[in-house]
């Protein structure tokens, strides 16, 4: 247990370091871009109307004072960390005075619900079917699934999303192509709303599952194909152990460990894909919020969303890391 404690501390330090570097980099990148949120806002406001040059200049100065964007960069950096520690991301500049945390709080459950659910479905299904395909190598259905999964695997996620959009939104319009729930149902904890949320999540969810299931399937099939030739598996088969038990206790249990590591490694990739997919389907999650923040030059919002993402992905990796030794007894900690 002493060894595990040291391992835990090391991993936690690594987690803190990743979060610190990630957020600091994001802070400086957003603040050093030529896009000034005040100028962007003034440009947005004057695009269609107000153009009195003196009034516009006065407005620019008033906004700088209001938003506090005129302070030196390092002062803003330290102030940001001070607020970050209490999860205060400050006000959104494009939605002033609404706090960034409030905007994130509203979008986060949608992204979390969609991403976590679909990632887990893809991971469980991909590994289960991949394991079966590796063990029952002559099964025609599993072979066919393997071909289909391999076919989908190299297609970029935005192409998959648009294909689904055209297929189920236009050619065979049976599924909603936009939003998180229908306007035609009353929001709340009622069955029509729940069903509507589920229905609206089918296409974006399917896009996430289709692009990720192939890699899990192929990885697991390859792992299992190797394990089934191991002596202990052959011995168990010769010893009359049931195939189901061999599959579950001898093969899958040994093969799953690298896939857990793979899940941790691929979390950020799934998050990136989810942002694009949310945008394509107008799904009301963090992806759309991030894109809106980028276009508005609202670095408070961009920083907030990015910080949450960095913390969430790093925390997921940390969690998997610390759980790993608990379910894989072969891992030795010293």
């Amino acid at each position: 247990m002493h060894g595990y404690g040291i391992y835990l501390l090391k991993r936690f330090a690594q987690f803190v370091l990743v979060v610190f570097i990630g957020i600091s980099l994001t802070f400086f990148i957003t603040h050093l871009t030529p896009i000034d949120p005040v100028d962007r806002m003034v440009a947005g406001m004057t695009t269609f109307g107000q153009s009195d040059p003196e009034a516009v200049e006065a407005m620019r100065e008033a906004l700088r004072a209001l938003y506090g964007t005129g302070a030196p960069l390092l002062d803003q950096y330290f102030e940001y960390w001070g607020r970050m520690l209490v999860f205060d991301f400050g006000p959104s500049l494009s939605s002033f005075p609404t706090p960034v945390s409030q905007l994130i709080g509203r979008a986060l459950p949608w992204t979390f619900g969609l991403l976590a659910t679909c990632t887990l479905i893809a991971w469980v299904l991909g590994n289960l079917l991949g394991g079966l395909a590796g063990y029952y190598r002559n099964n025609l259905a599993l072979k066919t699934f393997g071909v289909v999964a391999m076919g989908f695997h190299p297609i970029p996620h935005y192409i998959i999303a648009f294909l689904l959009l055209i297929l189920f939104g236009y050619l065979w319009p049976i599924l909603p192509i936009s939003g998180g729930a229908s306007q035609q149902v009353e929001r709340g904890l009622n069955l029509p709303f729940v069903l509507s949320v589920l229905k609206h999540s089918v296409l974006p969810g399917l896009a996430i599952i289709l692009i990720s299931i192939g890699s899990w399937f192929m990885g697991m099939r390859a792992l299992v194909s190797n394990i089934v030739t191991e002596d202990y598996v052959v011995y168990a088969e010769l010893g009359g152990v049931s195939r189901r038990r061999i599959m579950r206790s001898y093969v899958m249990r040994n093969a799953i460990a690298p896939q857990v590591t793979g899940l941790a490694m691929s979390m950020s990739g799934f998050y990136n894909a989810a942002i694009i997919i949310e945008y394509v389907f107008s799904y009301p999650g963090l992806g759309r919020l991030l894109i809106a923040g980028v276009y508005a030059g609202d670095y408070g919002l961009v920083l907030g969303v990015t910080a949450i993402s960095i913390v969430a992905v790093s925390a997921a990796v940390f969690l998997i890391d610390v759980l790993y030794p608990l379910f894989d007894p072969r891992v030795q900690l010293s």
Partner: protein
Amino acid sequence: MKLARLLVPLAAALFLSTAVHAQDASPPPRNQTLIVENPQGTIPNADSFNLWLPGLRGVSTGLHQLGMDTFWYIDPDHGLDGVWDNSLAAEPPIYNEDFTEMTVKLRQGIYWSDGVEFTADDVVFTTETHLNTDGLLRSSSYQLNVESVEAPDPYTVVFHLKRPNSRFHALFTVRWNAAWIMPRHVFEGQDPLQFDFNPPVTLGAYKLHSYDPNGQWFTWEKREDWERTTIARFGEPGPQYVTYVDPGPPDRRVIAQMNHELDIIHDVSPEGMFTLAKDSPSSIAWFDGFPYAHPDPTLPALIFNHQLEKFQSADVRWALALAIDIKAVSMASYRGAATISAIQIPPTGTHPQYYHEPLTEWLTSFELDTGQQVIRPYDPTMGQQIADMLRPTMGDEIPTDPQQIAASFGMGWWKQDLEAAAQLLEKAGFTRRDGEWYMPNGERFSIRIMVEGDGRPVMTRAGTMVAQQWRQFGIDATAENAQAAFFPRRESGDFEVCISWSVETWGGHPDLSFFLDSWHSDFVAAPGEIQPPRNWQRWSSPELDAIIEQIREVPFDDPRGVELGQEFVKLTVREMPTIPLMSYNVFTVMDETYWTGYPTAADPYTNPVPNWANSRYMMVRLRPTQP
């Protein structure tokens, strides 16, 4: 089972998070609901309806089209009863002789949606709030102009101004939007910089029905007392409900309208428009056939940075204009669906009758001395030529009536004349060696045309085509994709040539002060400093200043204003400070499955582009097709 244990709490968390923001309103029936695209997209802070605050909050969500009101509206097209509409004001503004005082007579019998009467107190409160609060969207406009405000009686407001301003009423005159009036009884005692104004108390004919807390849609319901609003003068609004929705990227808008889930698309690509025209029989646009789009009172142009040495000579600027084949630019940008303009006025609304038509003769006889010959560069048949060019592929979609062709494709433009262009460059001291142009200082004549990229693909394609044409002429021209840095670079003068617009007009009214006042040399920033809108070209001209100063001294409706506007056009033709190309055409597409009576070129009673506040006038003409 383990998986289920994990998924159930996740799903519950998702539903709970949305339930917290549940709206207590039943969904509106489809056949009573007009569904409109909100081009602002999804609104992050959907709970805030305080549109007096700065920021990119929900405005085109129906809030400023259906909920707000102010003194006057100028229609960018022809209007229901003329282009000028006295809305909250009972009559046009009344100025004193030296324009230091503006009196507004208010319309009586107008009520807020909560039953409180609208009076001069609301106007005084709105003005004083802006005078006393820094950081509101229009605080600086009030603070620079207004010394004090008073209400001698409940239906009269007098603004005492700090300095003469014959266009002070423009602050309260809607083009796209304007300064909206606040409800005193709601805002009093609130911090205007923090107040959410939720639910909004409205002066318009609609009130908020429900909205998506995630900001994807907002639904407005016709007020029971709609007769106590200003729009009632034109009749009862047709739609019982109006929903403004973010339908997503352009492809999805097309699909949504084909599925009859989106009645008005704000804008799509030319290709999207052509798809709908072909495959969606119930979809209509501004023009019955090609080019379909509504020309906005905005004029995309090639904007020179006049603070660069290479663009100092009018001969150089004219040479660059004559090196352009506008027909190819029209095809590249809008696939031919452009409405071209040779002069610095958008060819839209009532402008052709005030500027383009009266100046045709002058333009046709306009002479340009290239140093080796005198040419007449204007070709009044250019619009006709574009129509003829498109006819073999578009057939009956292309009009044959000359007036219709002029309205659709524009009138004339400058003939591409590479020989004259070369002579003009030589006149300016440039030399050509091996087909490549060199500046008087011996350096290669290079031009980078800054374009917006994905954000405005039509203009990007136009800029790329012009770069290609200039390159063929021997200039080292390239199109530079600035993406999100386009606006900061345009404003700080960090460009050589950009494709954008510095001309925006009222559309329906011939007065040019809306954009022209900001072209005065007083406002030109030093190189590297931020240029206030809209003189992005940073052009200074004593002749222009004299015209602007004269416009400031004539009343808004004085015919002398049009004469001065024509003087401006002639000056800019001679000087070519920017190369005007075309109006900004918006492919607004309307589906007649559920509603009919939309504004079109044949019945141009208002602007169909639904994010303009003027689009409220559409509501009184729309009627359901499926009662």
